[in-house]
């Protein structure tokens, strides 16, 4: 059990560092890093605080702490994946609408250029 909690702590710290470095290098935008940071900190706190983990376990009615930790982690990451799916879907729609608009505007610009040539 302690070993599992230690592994979770190490993973949480690695995740935390990874996110901070990524934000610093502008690989990930601040607004999208918040969810990851919250998840990493939550996992870190739970893995270092046995009483808190036991409280959560009792509240959820789960038989043991490792399962609680696993389910919490899985739940948090599922929610995050869902959130990112929503964001990606919006981005894709916006991207397609923009690409269509660019194509149509380029078409109009070319038409104006052709018109100018004809007049000249």
């Amino acid at each position: 059990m302690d070993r599992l909690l230690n592994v979770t702590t190490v993973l949480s710290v690695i995740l935390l560092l990874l996110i901070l470095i990524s934000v610093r290098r502008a690989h990930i935008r601040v607004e999208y890093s918040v969810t990851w940071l919250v998840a990493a900190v939550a996992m870190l706190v739970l893995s270092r605080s046995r009483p808190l983990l036991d409280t959560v376990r009792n509240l959820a009615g789960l038989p043991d702490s490792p399962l609680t930790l696993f389910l919490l982690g899985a739940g948090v990451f599922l929610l995050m994946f869902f959130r990112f799916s929503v964001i990606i879907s919006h981005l894709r729609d916006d991207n397609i609408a923009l690409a269509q608009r660019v194509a149509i505007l380029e078409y109009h610009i070319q038409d104006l250029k052709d018109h100018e040539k004809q007049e000249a």
Partner: protein
Amino acid sequence: MIRPVNPDSLLIIIPAFNEEGAIASVVREVHQFVPGVEVLVIDDCSTDSTIAAARAAGAHVLPVPHHLGLGGCVQAGYKLAWELGYSYVIRVDGDGQHDPRDIPRVFEKLRSSGCEMVIGSRFVTANGSRTGTVRSFGIRFFRLVLRPILGKPVHDPTSGFVGVNRRALNVFRSSFPLDYPEIEALVVLQRRRFRFEEVPCKMRPRTTGRSSITALKSLYYVVHVLLGVFVNVLKFERRLHLPQRRPEEEK
């Protein structure tokens, strides 16, 4: 520049992706059988000489900046047609499977029936058109699914040979399915109480290139389209409470 020349102006749009082998003959055939009509090829970022071939054959070309897929391309064509003021748009595939000789029939049906969409159908009458086993099974399946949703039978729901009027253009420029659009587009229109008709058309075998829907992708296609259909049904459920369309609205 393409411009509508009269209130009943028709624009032919041809979405194309790497169709250099067929696009020129499709454009020439359209000009031959529907003289005086403008043709707009929407190029989906082809890596071959589709654009040059289409222009050489006399088509206007709308190149999109990156690969959008079939629905994104068709919608770009609809948006441009709407902005330019076209009353009717007929979509023909760029692989030569649709026979441009059938365009006048689709156009005439669009004008005379007043319905928002006309589908060039392989199966309204037996006309010798052949489809593969998997596709044939898919078409039968979607006929069954769509029958209660549309309130009338549709013989060829996967046909890309489709004509629309300006009312449908107005809807499609803001709401058009991006992947595998044919079936979902029917539901989008039906949810707005628009009507569709089918006219018999002949589909020819593809002469160049390969279909984007392989046997392996068929299962994904069915799941994707099925989900899209039901999402559209749920999205516009308030239509049930709308008043019936009056005859003067249809004019």
